[in-house]
Structures are given as structure tokens and as C-alpha cells.
């Protein structure tokens, strides 16, 4: 379960979103939408614990989150399998077969990650989530560079994760064909009136 209450987030010291509240039960997914620069990335990084929230309460995220941002966290000089094995070990897991299978990576598993095409790299990055064993997936524009077939694989993987009692939180501009709640962050833009806790608030 993941619950946010009245969260406000800032980027570069500037508040971008405020009053973000939602609750996700096991098996639910939420898709964040909003125009460029509206603060989706910032919100996701906050939930993942990479930056502090300005204000508000958050519950259920600590130590249960697997985050995948714009960069993939792959080492160019390690093969796909080595990369996945490393991340599995960091999260105390062992098995990477399921992840390789889910993204049809078996034929690429011995290729160095640095020689993959943009979409193949993304696929390997997404497979990393499956070896973390974490219940909450946080995904920032996961389908960038993916072709239609792979977007399908990704949707299947998310569905399987939800089916197993997981939670998923995605920011995306395109339609993934997932049955999920949608949160449009555009109306939540931080207004000058509610910029409480911004790091530069003291200067106003």
C-alpha cells in the first residue's frame, strides 16, 4: 500500500507540484500525466526517496520502491546478464531468468550493454525492475524508444506484477493499454499562494 497526503515537491529549490494525494492498494497502478515540465519526474524521485518532499505525508514507500528513471543503470562494459545479476545480488535476489524471459532478452543476454540499440537498452533497464523483488515500481517514461511489440511486453510485465500484489506508478505521455487510474498533475501546479516549505520561501 502506498499513500500520499498533500505532498508538495520542489526542483532546483522551486516548488513545482503541491497538494498531491492518492492511495494505491496492492494490485493497483497509477499513471501520471501532464505536459512537459509539469513535475512528473520530480514527484517520482520524491516518492522513490531520492529527494525530500517539501511538505505532506507519505506512507508505505520506504524501502519498498524500485525506481527506473531516464537513465537505465546499465554498465556498458558488462553483458546484459551480468548487469541483471549484479542488481539481483544488490537486492538479495538470485534468479534473473524470469526477467530475461519477460522482455525476450535471452538472445541478447551475452551482449555487452554498451552495444545495444536505444530500445534494447531500455528493455534491459526495465528487466532490472523484475530482479529487485520490490513491491512498488516507479517508472519514469518507461516506454521511450520502445517499439509497439515491446510496449506490449512491458504492459504484460506490469500486469503480472500487479497480479502478484504489486503496485506500479508510471509517468508517460503515450497510451500503454493498461487498466489503471490516471492522475493528471497539470492542475496540481504549485501556486504562489501555497508554496509553503519551498527552500527559498524565507526570501519572499
Amino acid at each position, binding site marked *: 500500500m502506498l499513500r500520499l497526503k498533500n505532498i508538495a515537491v520542489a526542483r532546483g*529549490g*522551486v516548488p513545482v507540484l503541491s497538494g498531491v494525494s492518492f492511495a494505491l492498494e496492492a494490485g493497483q497502478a497509477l499513471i501520471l500525466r501532464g*505536459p*512537459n515540465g509539469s513535475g512528473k519526474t520530480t514527484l517520482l524521485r520524491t516518492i522513490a526517496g531520492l529527494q525530500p518532499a517539501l511538505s505532506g505525508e507519505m506512507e508505505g514507500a520506504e524501502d519498498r520502491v524500485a525506481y527506473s528513471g531516464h537513465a537505465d543503470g546499465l554498465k556498458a562494459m558488462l553483458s546484459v546478464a551480468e548487469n541483471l545479476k549484479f542488481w539481483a545480488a544488490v537486492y538479495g535476489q538470485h534468479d534473473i531468468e524470469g526477467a530475461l524471459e519477460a522482455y525476450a532478452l535471452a538472445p541478447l543476454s551475452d551482449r555487452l550493454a554498451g552495444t545495444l540499440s536505444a530500445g534494447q537498452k531500455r528493455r534491459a533497464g526495465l528487466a532490472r525492475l523484475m530482479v529487485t523483488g520490490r513491491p512498488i515500481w516507479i517508472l519514469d517514461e518507461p516506454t521511450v524508444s520502445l517499439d509497439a511489440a515491446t510496449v506490449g511486453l512491458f504492459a504484460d510485465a506490469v500486469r503480472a506484477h500487479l497480479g502478484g500484489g504489486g503496485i506500479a506508478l508510471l509517468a508517460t505521455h503515450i497510451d500503454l493499454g493498461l487498466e489503471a487510474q490516471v492522475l493528471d498533475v497539470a492542475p496540481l501546479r504549485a501556486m504562489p499562494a501555497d508554496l509553503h516549505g519551498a*527552500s*527559498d*520561501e*524565507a*526570501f*519572499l
Partner: protein
Amino acid sequence: MSLWEYANPVKFLALSARVQPVAWAAALTGIVVGLGWGFFGTPDDFRQGSTVKIIYIHVPAAWIAINAWIMMLIASLIWLVRRHHVSALAARAAAPVGLVMTVIGLLTGAIWGQPMWGTWWAWDPRLTSFLILFLFYLGYIALWEAIEDPDTAADLTSVLCLVGSVFALMSRYAVLFWSQGLHQGASLSLDKEENISDVFWIPLVISIAGFTLLFIALVLYRTGTEISLRRARALAVRLDKEL
């Protein structure tokens, strides 16, 4: 009213606006009187000749250089513990002043060294420690300049200042171990017998006071500048938030 009230930028600016004219005037007076008296009104030393006049710059500058770092250390700690913006910005404002004072101390020392020791520079522990302090100032300022986000920059420079202070202290011991000195020992201590004579002492103390006041005035003004920049940034952000 608690002292921490002045950690609010607006309150700080108000206070600083009241203090600053006094500080500037007193600084100017102190420096003019101290240096003027020292330069025009004191006799030559029987051994050092007229070069002794350099002391009225050299010692105050060295004193400020060291104490500016200590002030930055305290301000950094306040920022890390209590997150008062003014203290972080004051540390930032003080660093260039400390750097310039370090340079003045080094330069006047080097100029003094040539007639006295026959060399511009020697690897004496005091001189060497001072050079290391100069390097710490450089690194500290470079880190401030390199980081975009002001709060992150404040955090990181504060950590650097803490860790750097520990290492600066260790360097001092290492340097003492490594080389023996030529440089004067502390001659300004109040409890010691062989204090330098009063003719030199009084203008020196006035000059030190003048330099200290100048430091205070500069730091207040520069902190105000930093606050203005932050405030302008905060307002600008809220204005062109139209994306």
C-alpha cells in the same frame, strides 16, 4: 527575542542596514588611523629598520584570514544543524574576503621576507600553513561556484568546510613536524613578558580592530548581496512559471 530571529533574511537585512553605516565608518576610521599612525607616526625598529611598518598590515590581514575561516566553519555548522539560510550565505560571502586577506598576508610577508631573511619565500611552517589555508579557500570558493542549486551548494560546501577544517588542522601538525621555522613567534600575547613595545603595539591594535570591522562590514554587505540574488531568483521563478 532570540538571536535566531536574525536568521530570517528580512530581519537580517533590517538589522544589517542599521549596523552597516556604523561598521563602515568605524572600519574606515580604524584603518586610516591604524595604518596612518603606523606609517607616519612610529619610529623604525633598531634591527628591522622601516620594514617594521609592514606589521600594521601583515598581522591584521593574517588575523582576519584565519578568523574568517573559523567564522565560515561556525556558519556552516549552523546551516547544517539549523538550516538558516543567512548563515550559509554569510559563509559564502566571507570566503572571498578571507581569500583576499590571505593573499595580502602572503604578499606582505613575502615582501617583508626579502629584506629580513634574504628570500621572498621559505618553507617555514607558519608560511606553509598559510599557503595551505589559501588552497582551502580556493577549493571552497570553486565548489560554491560549480554547483547550480543554491541549497545543494550550501550543503556541500558546509561539509567541505567541516572536513577541510579537520584536515587543515592535521596539515598544521604535519607541517610543524616537517620543517623548522624562521618566522616570528606569537608576540602579541597579553600574558607574556617580551611584548613588543607600546609604540608599535597601539597602532597595531587599532589596525587590527579596523581590519576586523572592515571584515564585518564587507560580510554584512556581501551577505545582503547574496540574499538579494536569492530573492530575485525566487521571485523570477514564480513569475515566469508560465511554461
